[in-house]
Structure formats: structure tokens, C-alpha cells
């Protein structure tokens, strides 16, 4: 097991319903500091469950997850999650949602004000501070989710298909912004997606998962230089190669559904 890794998933399995449903089996992953690992896989391969285990929201049935060498058994400090369903609190305005993590952590008023100012501007929500989530589009709601996660200045960002519920154009925009953001504030990131394109554009490495049982079939290095321009990456021949390769890996699991 690599000792310098920021996150280690060590022989982790997760079974549900007294073992009758296997979410994933025997997964080993090492993620180094400030690395972006994208996990791509068909629906039902347990990738979201894996992320919840890494985030300490769900204990693995066997094996373990280590962050900075510490075993994870509840949500660890310094880890923030961005949810596919956004997970915004409907009774809180945009500012209060973004401030949520800081407030829970007992941050000072000044710090909260400073962070709010910074991140609300960063995700482009200036002018919407006092809106409630129901008054925002899906894309804007996820900006709030992103700002909320970033506001606690986490070392690790866990992204659970964050852009799956927004429309295609907004999705591309958010991907570009995430790349810019990563240039500015490098985080260790695990990014779950079922879009091969998204995984290649964003990741340093891409873990390809298969289903029944969920497992990591292959880990590919992406190696495009940063800062990245998605359009330029898509024009590279290596992009097409990777894309075809991952698709061939995924095809059997997808066809089975």
C-alpha cells in the first residue's frame, strides 16, 4: 500500500440487505495529494456507494478507507462532498446554505463573511445571496452546492455526479469552471461521473468500474497538461484513444442492463 497517499481504499467491499446485494467488492485505490481521480462506470456499479464510504457516511462491510493514514469511520474533517441531488436546505437562503459548513464548524462571523464574499463571487452567484433554492435553476443550485463545499476550504473534495442533474450546456460551463477553480485552489478530488468525456477532461487518472459486482477494472493515466482547455483536450488524438478504450471497457456492463 502506498504510504504517501492522501486517500487509500484498502480492500473495501460493501454489501447491502444482509449480503444479498453487492454494491462493490474488493476495491483498492490510492489517491495522492492534490490529485484528481475520476471514477467512471455504468449505473449500479456502486460508484456512489464507494464515494459515500470514502466520505465516512457509510461504513464499508469489509476493508477500510484511510485518509492521511487515519481510518475513516465518520465524516472526516477537511472533506467536503458535492451531491448529485445538490442537497441544499430549502429553508436556507443562498448565503445561509453556503455558510452552512462553516457555521457547523463554529467559524467566526468575520471568517464566514469573508468566505461568503469570496465563494459566492467565485461561483457567480452575486445578486442571488438572498434567494431560496427553489428560486434557482438546477445549474445555479449546484453552484451553491459547490460554494458550500469549497467554503470550508477542504483538502479533499468528493464529487458525486455533481453535474448529472443539470443541462448539457450548463454542464460544460461548470466543467470549465471546475478546471479553473482547480488551477486556483488545488484540492485532492474524487469525481464520480458516468460521462467518459467528463472523466477525461477533469481527471489526472480515470478509474473505470464494472458492475455485478462493482469493481475497479482499470485505472488510466490521463496526463493532459494543466491548465486545461476542454476543447483543446477533445482535439487531441490521445483523448479519442482514451475515450474509445474506456467505452470498450464499459460496453459489456452497459449492454447487460
Amino acid at each position, binding site marked *: 500500500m502506498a504510504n504517501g497517499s492522501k486517500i487509500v481504499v484498502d480492500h473495501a467491499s460493501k454489501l447491502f440487505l444482509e449480503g444479498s446485494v453487492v454494491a462493490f467488492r474488493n476495491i483498492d485505490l490510492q489517491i495522492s495529494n492534490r490529485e484528481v481521480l475520476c471514477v467512471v462506470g455504468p449505473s449500479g456499479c456502486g460508484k456512489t456507494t464507494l464515494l*459515500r464510504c470514502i*466520505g465516512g*457516511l457509510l461504513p464499508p462491510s469489509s476493508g477500510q478507507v484511510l485518509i492521511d493514514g487515519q481510518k475513516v469511520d*465518520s*465524516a472526516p*474533517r*477537511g*472533506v*467536503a*462532498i458535492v*451531491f448529485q*441531488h445538490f*442537497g441544499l*436546505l*430549502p*429553508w*436556507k437562503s443562498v448565503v445561509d446554505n453556503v455558510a*452552512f*459548513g*462553516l457555521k*457547523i*464548524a463554529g*467559524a467566526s462571523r468575520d*471568517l464566514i463573511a*469573508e*468566505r461568503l*464574499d*469570496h*465563494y459566492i*463571487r*467565485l*461561483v*457567480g*452567484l*452575486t*445578486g*442571488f445571496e438572498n434567494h*431560496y*433554492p*427553489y*428560486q434557482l435553476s438546477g445549474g*445555479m443550485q449546484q453552484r451553491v452546492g459547490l460554494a458550500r463545499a469549497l467554503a*470550508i*476550504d*477542504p*483538502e479533499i473534495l468528493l464529487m458525486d455526479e455533481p453535474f448529472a442533474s443539470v443541462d448539457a450546456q450548463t454542464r460544460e*460551463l461548470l466543467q*470549465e*469552471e471546475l478546471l*479553473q477553480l482547480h488551477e*486556483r*485552489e488545488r484540492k485532492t478530488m474524487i469525481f464520480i461521473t458516468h460521462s467518459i468525456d467528463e472523466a477525461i477532461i477533469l481527471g489526472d487518472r480515470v478509474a473505470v468500474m464494472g458492475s455485478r459486482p462493482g469493481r475497479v477494472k482499470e485505472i488510466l493515466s490521463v496526463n493532459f497538461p494543466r491548465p486545461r482547455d476542454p476543447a483543446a483536450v477533445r482535439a487531441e488524438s490521445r483523448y479519442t484513444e482514451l475515450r474509445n478504450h474506456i467505452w470498450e471497457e464499459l460496453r459489456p456492463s452497459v449492454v447487460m442492463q
Partner: protein
Amino acid sequence: MSLSRTEEQSANATAPFAYQELAAEQQAAREKARAVQRRWTTAQIAIQIISLLVVLSAWEYLGRHINPVLFTYPTAVGSAAVKMIASGELWKYLSQSLIVLFAGLGLATIFGIALGLIMARFWVVDVALDTYITALYSIPSVALVPVLVLWFGFEITAKIAVVFLFTFFPIVINTHQGVKNVDARLTEVGRAFRCSERQLWIHIVLPAAVPYIVTGLRLAIGRGLIGMVLADLYTAITGIGYLISRYASIYRTDAMFVPIATLGLLGITLTGLLRFVEKRVAPWMHQPDQE
């Protein structure tokens, strides 16, 4: 997690995509939607007024052809109402009943919400009490009124106990349900951000339960009015129940309808008041796309 950020990083932050222009457009759209809403409300009020006029006219016409002991008509009720309001008679008896209603409803709200929350939080209490709550809620409350009279006598204590009995259970059950039905995804968000149990309740569970509690209160208001009149009739005969039974016994049907109509107005007013408070404390419950 380090909670510090350098000046330089803050200065670097420029919005990659700004929404200010959109904000102005949204504002305009919201105003337009409000104008549409206003037109709707006006139309609804107009329809309600027309409907009221038609029904009252029909009642007036038919009522005048029926023996006044058996039935009455709007203008007769109206003039009786004017007399009863002017003499202070209506308010005198109504206030007696209102004290009972508000005391019973108030106590039921406090204890009902408290018990609902305790049952939701401590499963032992839930398992221990659930059967009784369900059983007591299933028994028509009116069947228990004689028991309350036995225990509390005929005076105001007994009346408040009756209203309490009628209103307590819907509040308990709805509060309990509200907590139980909190979106698990949101409690997970709370755990992801390392909420303590107390923080989880304050920031997530209680706000999520508010709509259910309000529903409980709405049910309780309806049942509370029933309890109030029953208490007036089945214990010492006072208040609005007294007015009804007295005018019935002397065949003054027109005057008898005054307290009855008052009860209807009271129900409408209290429910409207609750809706108003609800809009104030829980604006997210009135999402335009959900209405």
C-alpha cells in the same frame, strides 16, 4: 481543515460567469408573475362574491316560504346578528368559548409538539406509547367527554380538557410523522458537514418537520372548534353552545343561526391566520412550481 485564506487568494477570485443581468431579468419575471397572481386572486374573490350572492338569494327566497320555527333566511339572521352584536350578547358568550378554545389549543400545541418530538427522537418512547396514541386517536373523542366530566367537573377546567383531548393527537401524530419523514438525503448532508446531533435537529430536522406540524395544527383547529361546542353543550352550558341551545329551545331559529354562522367565520379566520403565519415562517413551503 485550516480556516484561513490569504488576501491574495481573495483578490484573485473573479466570477467566471456572472449572473447579475439574469438577476434583473428574474426580478422582472417575478413582478410579472405577481401581477398574474393578483389578477387570479381578484378573479377568485369575484367568483366567491357572486356565488355567495346566488346562494344567499336562493336561501332568502326559499326561507321566506318555510315556517320560521323550522328554518330561517339571511336577512332575518342578519338583523338578529345586528341586535346580538349591538347588545354585546354575542361577544359575551363567544369570548367565554374562545378562552376555552385558545387555552385547550395552546396547551395541546405545546405538549403535542413536545411529545411528538420526544417520540421521534427516542425510539423507546415511540414503541412504548405508539399503541395508546393510535388507540386514543381512533376512539371518537366525543366518547371520552363523560369521562372528562367525571374527572374535571363541569367548569372551565373540564371544557379546556375537552378541547385539549380533541386537538392533542393530530398535533402529536403529525409532529412525529414530520420528523420521521425528514429527507434522508438532507440528514446525510448534515452528517457530511459534521453536524452534532443538536445542530442536526436545529438546522435540518426541525425546519423539515414544520410543514407537518402546521398540517397538524390545521387539523387541530377544526377539531378544536368541535370540541369547544361540545364542551359548551355537554358540561355546564355556557358560551356559544349556550346561545345555540337557548335560542333553539325558544324557537328563535334566526337568532340561533347567528352563533352557528359565527363558528364558520371563526374557522375560516383561524385557518387563514395559520396560513399567514406559515407564509411568514416557512416561505419555502410556497414554491410557485408546487402550487
